[in-house]
Protein backbone atom coordinates (compact mmCIF):
# COMPACT_ATOMS: atom_id res chain seq x y z
CA UNK A 1 0.00 0.00 0.00
CA UNK A 2 2.83 2.37 0.92
CA UNK A 3 4.51 1.53 -2.39
CA UNK A 4 1.31 2.38 -4.28
CA UNK A 5 0.99 5.69 -2.44
CA UNK A 6 4.64 6.53 -3.08
CA UNK A 7 4.12 5.74 -6.77
CA UNK A 8 1.10 8.06 -6.74
CA UNK A 9 3.23 10.81 -5.19
CA UNK A 10 5.76 10.36 -8.00
CA UNK A 11 3.02 10.60 -10.61
CA UNK A 12 1.96 13.89 -9.07
CA UNK A 13 5.53 15.15 -9.31
CA UNK A 14 5.61 14.13 -12.97
CA UNK A 15 2.36 16.04 -13.45
CA UNK A 16 3.74 19.19 -11.81
CA UNK A 17 6.96 18.99 -13.85
CA UNK A 18 5.02 18.38 -17.07
CA UNK A 19 2.76 21.38 -16.41
CA UNK A 20 5.71 23.70 -15.75
CA UNK A 21 7.63 22.43 -18.78
CA UNK A 22 4.63 22.72 -21.10
CA UNK A 23 4.26 26.34 -20.01
CA UNK A 24 7.95 27.05 -20.69
CA UNK A 25 7.85 25.37 -24.09
CA UNK A 26 4.76 27.41 -24.97
CA UNK A 27 6.74 30.53 -24.15
CA UNK A 28 9.71 29.54 -26.30
CA UNK A 29 7.38 28.64 -29.16
CA UNK A 30 5.64 31.99 -28.79
CA UNK A 31 8.94 33.82 -29.08
CA UNK A 32 9.95 31.76 -32.12
CA UNK A 33 6.52 32.37 -33.64
CA UNK A 34 6.75 36.14 -33.18
CA UNK A 35 10.25 36.35 -34.61
CA UNK A 36 9.37 34.18 -37.58
CA UNK A 37 6.42 36.49 -38.14
CA UNK A 38 8.71 39.49 -37.90
CA UNK A 39 10.98 38.03 -40.57
CA UNK A 40 7.92 37.56 -42.72
CA UNK A 41 7.04 41.20 -42.10
CA UNK A 42 10.53 42.19 -43.27
CA UNK A 43 10.15 40.09 -46.41
CA UNK A 44 6.93 41.95 -47.09
CA UNK A 45 8.80 45.21 -46.62
CA UNK A 46 11.21 44.35 -49.43
CA UNK A 47 8.28 43.59 -51.68
CA UNK A 48 6.90 46.97 -50.77
CA UNK A 49 10.35 48.38 -51.61
CA UNK A 50 11.04 49.38 -48.03
CA UNK A 51 14.15 47.23 -47.77
CA UNK A 52 15.12 44.73 -45.08
CA UNK A 53 16.98 46.12 -42.08
CA UNK A 54 19.82 43.55 -41.80
CA UNK A 55 20.53 44.09 -38.09
CA UNK A 56 16.93 43.45 -37.18
CA UNK A 57 16.89 40.31 -39.30
CA UNK A 58 20.06 39.13 -37.60
CA UNK A 59 18.57 39.89 -34.19
CA UNK A 60 15.39 37.97 -35.00
CA UNK A 61 17.29 34.91 -36.20
CA UNK A 62 19.55 35.00 -33.13
CA UNK A 63 16.49 35.07 -30.91
CA UNK A 64 15.00 32.10 -32.76
CA UNK A 65 18.21 30.08 -32.38
CA UNK A 66 18.40 30.96 -28.67
CA UNK A 67 14.84 29.83 -28.05
CA UNK A 68 15.41 26.57 -29.91
CA UNK A 69 18.42 25.94 -27.65
CA UNK A 70 16.35 26.83 -24.60
CA UNK A 71 13.60 24.41 -25.65
CA UNK A 72 16.17 21.71 -26.30
CA UNK A 73 17.61 22.02 -22.79
CA UNK A 74 14.14 21.95 -21.27
CA UNK A 75 13.22 18.78 -23.16
CA UNK A 76 16.58 17.18 -22.39
CA UNK A 77 15.94 17.70 -18.66
CA UNK A 78 12.45 16.26 -18.95
CA UNK A 79 13.84 13.26 -20.78
CA UNK A 80 16.49 12.67 -18.11
CA UNK A 81 13.89 12.85 -15.37
CA UNK A 82 11.59 10.48 -17.23
CA UNK A 83 14.42 7.94 -17.61
CA UNK A 84 15.02 8.02 -13.85
CA UNK A 85 12.11 5.59 -13.65
CA UNK A 86 13.70 3.04 -16.03
CA UNK A 87 14.85 0.76 -13.20
CA UNK A 88 13.81 0.48 -9.57
CA UNK A 89 17.38 0.87 -8.30
CA UNK A 90 19.98 2.80 -10.24
CA UNK A 91 23.42 4.30 -9.79
CA UNK A 92 23.71 8.03 -10.30
CA UNK A 93 25.99 10.98 -9.74
CA UNK A 94 24.55 13.14 -6.95
CA UNK A 95 25.71 16.45 -8.41
CA UNK A 96 24.08 15.63 -11.75
CA UNK A 97 20.91 14.53 -9.97
CA UNK A 98 20.71 17.74 -7.96
CA UNK A 99 21.50 19.89 -11.04
CA UNK A 100 18.67 18.20 -12.88
CA UNK A 101 16.14 18.83 -10.12
CA UNK A 102 17.26 22.44 -9.71
CA UNK A 103 16.75 22.91 -13.47
CA UNK A 104 13.28 21.36 -13.25
CA UNK A 105 12.32 23.92 -10.61
CA UNK A 106 13.58 26.90 -12.63
CA UNK A 107 10.11 28.14 -13.52
CA UNK A 108 8.80 28.04 -9.96
CA UNK A 109 11.95 29.82 -8.76
CA UNK A 110 11.62 32.46 -11.50
CA UNK A 111 8.02 33.17 -10.51
CA UNK A 112 9.29 34.36 -7.12
CA UNK A 113 12.63 35.74 -8.36
CA UNK A 114 14.37 33.12 -6.24
CA UNK A 115 18.02 32.33 -6.99
CA UNK A 116 19.36 28.84 -6.33
CA UNK A 117 23.00 28.08 -5.61
CA UNK A 118 24.12 24.43 -5.70
CA UNK A 119 27.26 23.28 -3.95
CA UNK A 120 27.96 19.55 -4.23
CA UNK A 121 31.19 17.55 -4.48
CA UNK A 122 31.38 16.18 -8.05
CA UNK A 123 32.32 12.60 -7.16
CA UNK A 124 29.50 11.35 -4.93
CA UNK A 125 27.79 8.29 -6.38
CA UNK A 126 24.41 7.15 -5.11
CA UNK A 127 22.59 3.87 -5.54
CA UNK A 128 18.91 4.19 -4.81
CA UNK A 129 15.49 4.59 -6.37
CA UNK A 130 16.32 7.71 -8.34
CA UNK A 131 12.78 8.75 -9.22
CA UNK A 132 11.71 8.64 -5.56
CA UNK A 133 14.80 10.61 -4.51
CA UNK A 134 14.41 13.18 -7.28
CA UNK A 135 10.69 13.57 -6.57
CA UNK A 136 11.43 14.09 -2.88
CA UNK A 137 14.10 16.71 -3.56
CA UNK A 138 11.78 18.41 -6.06
CA UNK A 139 8.89 18.58 -3.59
CA UNK A 140 11.20 19.78 -0.81
CA UNK A 141 12.53 22.57 -3.02
CA UNK A 142 8.99 23.61 -3.90
CA UNK A 143 8.10 23.65 -0.19
CA UNK A 144 11.03 25.97 0.45
CA UNK A 145 10.12 28.25 -2.47
CA UNK A 146 6.49 28.46 -1.38
CA UNK A 147 7.50 29.49 2.11
CA UNK A 148 10.16 32.04 1.31
CA UNK A 149 9.99 35.70 0.39
CA UNK A 150 10.24 36.88 -3.21
CA UNK A 151 13.83 37.50 -4.17
CA UNK A 152 15.33 35.00 -1.70
CA UNK A 153 18.46 32.97 -2.36
CA UNK A 154 18.29 29.21 -1.75
CA UNK A 155 21.54 27.41 -1.01
CA UNK A 156 21.69 23.67 -1.73
CA UNK A 157 24.58 22.07 0.12
CA UNK A 158 25.66 18.45 0.48
CA UNK A 159 27.26 16.83 3.48
CA UNK A 160 28.90 13.48 2.72
CA UNK A 161 28.66 11.65 6.01
CA UNK A 162 29.20 8.11 4.74
CA UNK A 163 27.28 5.87 4.66
CA UNK A 164 24.66 8.64 4.65
CA UNK A 165 24.32 11.82 2.65
CA UNK A 166 22.57 14.95 3.87
CA UNK A 167 21.18 17.50 1.46
CA UNK A 168 20.65 20.82 3.16
CA UNK A 169 18.31 23.28 1.46
CA UNK A 170 18.54 26.61 3.20
CA UNK A 171 17.67 30.22 2.80
CA UNK A 172 20.65 32.55 2.68
CA UNK A 173 18.88 35.01 4.94
CA UNK A 174 17.99 33.34 8.23
CA UNK A 175 14.96 35.52 8.77
CA UNK A 176 13.25 34.51 5.56
CA UNK A 177 11.74 31.11 6.38
CA UNK A 178 8.26 31.18 7.92
CA UNK A 179 7.22 28.26 10.14
CA UNK A 180 6.14 25.42 7.87
CA UNK A 181 4.73 21.92 8.01
CA UNK A 182 7.56 19.77 6.69
CA UNK A 183 7.43 17.01 5.67
CA UNK A 184 3.92 16.65 4.22
CA UNK A 185 2.30 13.25 3.57
CA UNK A 186 3.73 12.79 0.07
CA UNK A 187 7.22 13.74 1.21
CA UNK A 188 6.97 11.23 4.09
CA UNK A 189 5.86 8.47 1.71
CA UNK A 190 8.74 9.11 -0.67
CA UNK A 191 11.22 9.36 2.19
CA UNK A 192 10.17 5.96 3.53
CA UNK A 193 10.85 4.35 0.18
CA UNK A 194 14.50 5.44 0.16
CA UNK A 195 15.04 5.23 3.95
CA UNK A 196 15.41 9.00 4.18
CA UNK A 197 14.81 11.20 7.18
CA UNK A 198 13.48 14.72 6.81
CA UNK A 199 13.72 17.61 9.23
CA UNK A 200 13.67 21.37 9.54
CA UNK A 201 16.20 23.52 11.35
CA UNK A 202 15.74 27.29 11.53
CA UNK A 203 16.09 28.35 7.88
CA UNK A 204 16.94 24.92 6.46
CA UNK A 205 15.17 21.80 5.29
CA UNK A 206 17.29 18.68 5.68
CA UNK A 207 17.07 15.43 3.76
CA UNK A 208 19.34 12.57 4.89
CA UNK A 209 19.45 9.21 3.15
CA UNK A 210 21.79 6.23 2.68
CA UNK A 211 24.09 6.73 -0.31
CA UNK A 212 23.51 3.11 -1.22
CA UNK A 213 20.51 0.91 -0.61
CA UNK A 214 22.02 -2.09 -2.42
Amino acid at each position, binding site marked *: MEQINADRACVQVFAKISAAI*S*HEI*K*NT*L*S*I*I*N*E*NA*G*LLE*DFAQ*MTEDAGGIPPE*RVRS*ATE*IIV*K*QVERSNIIMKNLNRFAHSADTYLAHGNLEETLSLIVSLTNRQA*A*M*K*NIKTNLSCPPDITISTNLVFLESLIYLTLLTLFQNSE*DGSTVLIQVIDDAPDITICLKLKNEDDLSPIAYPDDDQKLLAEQIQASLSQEKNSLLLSFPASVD
Partner: protein
Amino acid sequence: MTQNEQSNPTVLVADDEIEFASTLVARLKLRNFPATMANSGKAALAAIEQDQPDVLILDLKMPDLDGLEVLASLKENYPDLAVIILTGHGSFEAGRQGMELGAYDYIMKPVDLNLLLVKIEDAYQSRTA
Protein backbone atom coordinates in the same frame (compact mmCIF):
# COMPACT_ATOMS: atom_id res chain seq x y z
CA MET B 1 2.61 60.00 -33.44
CA THR B 2 2.13 59.70 -37.19
CA GLN B 3 -1.17 60.22 -38.94
CA ASN B 4 -1.57 56.47 -39.41
CA GLU B 5 -0.79 55.74 -35.77
CA GLN B 6 -3.36 58.27 -34.57
CA SER B 7 -6.20 56.22 -36.02
CA ASN B 8 -5.18 53.04 -34.23
CA PRO B 9 -5.65 52.28 -30.54
CA THR B 10 -2.62 52.51 -28.29
CA VAL B 11 -1.54 49.11 -27.02
CA LEU B 12 0.46 48.03 -23.97
CA VAL B 13 1.88 44.48 -24.02
CA ALA B 14 2.51 43.13 -20.50
CA ASP B 15 4.56 39.91 -20.48
CA ASP B 16 7.65 38.87 -18.50
CA GLU B 17 9.14 37.15 -21.57
CA ILE B 18 10.99 40.21 -22.87
CA GLU B 19 11.81 38.76 -26.28
CA PHE B 20 8.18 37.88 -26.86
CA ALA B 21 6.83 41.25 -25.74
CA SER B 22 9.43 43.30 -27.63
CA THR B 23 8.90 41.40 -30.87
CA LEU B 24 5.13 41.66 -30.61
CA VAL B 25 5.49 45.40 -29.99
CA ALA B 26 7.77 45.69 -33.03
CA ARG B 27 5.24 43.89 -35.20
CA LEU B 28 2.38 46.04 -33.94
CA LYS B 29 4.41 49.18 -34.68
CA LEU B 30 5.05 47.95 -38.22
CA ARG B 31 1.28 47.94 -38.55
CA ASN B 32 1.03 51.50 -37.21
CA PHE B 33 -0.18 50.64 -33.73
CA PRO B 34 1.43 52.83 -31.07
CA ALA B 35 2.65 50.00 -28.85
CA THR B 36 4.80 49.72 -25.72
CA MET B 37 5.68 46.90 -23.34
CA ALA B 38 5.94 46.18 -19.61
CA ASN B 39 7.75 43.13 -18.28
CA SER B 40 6.05 42.61 -14.94
CA GLY B 41 2.67 43.10 -13.30
CA LYS B 42 3.92 46.08 -11.29
CA ALA B 43 5.55 47.66 -14.34
CA ALA B 44 2.27 47.27 -16.23
CA LEU B 45 0.29 49.00 -13.47
CA ALA B 46 2.84 51.82 -13.33
CA ALA B 47 2.77 52.24 -17.11
CA ILE B 48 -1.02 52.39 -17.11
CA GLU B 49 -1.04 54.96 -14.34
CA GLN B 50 1.43 57.11 -16.24
CA ASP B 51 -0.21 56.85 -19.65
CA GLN B 52 -3.31 54.72 -19.95
CA PRO B 53 -3.38 52.74 -23.20
CA ASP B 54 -6.56 51.94 -25.08
CA VAL B 55 -5.91 48.20 -25.05
CA LEU B 56 -3.83 46.06 -22.70
CA ILE B 57 -2.48 42.68 -23.82
CA LEU B 58 -1.89 40.94 -20.49
CA ASP B 59 0.02 37.73 -19.75
CA LEU B 60 -1.63 35.71 -17.00
CA LYS B 61 1.51 34.40 -15.36
CA MET B 62 4.13 36.93 -14.34
CA PRO B 63 6.59 36.71 -11.43
CA ASP B 64 5.49 39.59 -9.23
CA LEU B 65 1.75 39.84 -9.79
CA ASP B 66 -0.13 37.35 -11.85
CA GLY B 67 -2.46 38.57 -14.57
CA LEU B 68 -5.63 37.89 -12.63
CA GLU B 69 -4.38 40.06 -9.75
CA VAL B 70 -3.53 42.85 -12.19
CA LEU B 71 -6.93 42.49 -13.80
CA ALA B 72 -8.76 42.76 -10.50
CA SER B 73 -6.86 45.95 -9.73
CA LEU B 74 -7.55 47.42 -13.16
CA LYS B 75 -11.26 46.68 -13.20
CA GLU B 76 -11.82 49.09 -10.33
CA ASN B 77 -9.48 51.90 -11.35
CA TYR B 78 -9.59 51.81 -15.15
CA PRO B 79 -13.03 50.65 -16.28
CA ASP B 80 -12.45 52.04 -19.80
CA LEU B 81 -9.34 49.98 -20.37
CA ALA B 82 -9.93 47.06 -22.72
CA VAL B 83 -7.96 43.98 -21.70
CA ILE B 84 -7.09 40.95 -23.79
CA ILE B 85 -5.57 38.11 -21.80
CA LEU B 86 -2.63 36.08 -23.08
CA THR B 87 -2.61 32.52 -21.86
CA GLY B 88 -0.25 29.67 -22.57
CA HIS B 89 -1.90 27.28 -20.19
CA GLY B 90 -3.75 25.25 -22.77
CA SER B 91 -6.82 25.59 -20.61
CA PHE B 92 -9.85 27.71 -21.26
CA GLU B 93 -10.46 28.04 -17.52
CA ALA B 94 -7.83 30.73 -17.13
CA GLY B 95 -9.34 32.75 -19.96
CA ARG B 96 -12.83 32.29 -18.56
CA GLN B 97 -11.72 33.49 -15.13
CA GLY B 98 -10.14 36.52 -16.69
CA MET B 99 -13.29 37.40 -18.56
CA GLU B 100 -15.30 37.07 -15.36
CA LEU B 101 -12.90 39.61 -13.89
CA GLY B 102 -13.62 42.03 -16.71
CA ALA B 103 -11.26 41.13 -19.54
CA TYR B 104 -12.74 41.65 -22.99
CA ASP B 105 -11.29 38.48 -24.52
CA TYR B 106 -8.38 36.07 -24.36
CA ILE B 107 -5.95 34.59 -26.84
CA MET B 108 -3.70 31.54 -26.59
CA LYS B 109 0.05 31.54 -27.09
CA PRO B 110 1.68 31.18 -29.62
CA VAL B 111 -0.28 34.15 -30.89
CA ASP B 112 -1.95 34.35 -34.28
CA LEU B 113 -1.23 38.00 -34.97
CA ASN B 114 -4.06 38.46 -37.45
CA LEU B 115 -6.50 37.11 -34.87
CA LEU B 116 -4.98 39.37 -32.21
CA LEU B 117 -5.40 42.43 -34.44
CA VAL B 118 -9.08 41.64 -34.84
CA LYS B 119 -9.45 41.24 -31.08
CA ILE B 120 -7.60 44.52 -30.45
CA GLU B 121 -9.90 46.37 -32.81
CA ASP B 122 -13.04 44.74 -31.37
CA ALA B 123 -11.91 45.41 -27.80
CA TYR B 124 -11.22 49.06 -28.60
CA GLN B 125 -14.54 49.50 -30.39
CA SER B 126 -16.40 47.94 -27.45
CA ARG B 127 -15.03 50.62 -25.16
CA THR B 128 -15.60 53.55 -27.47
CA ALA B 129 -19.06 52.55 -28.73
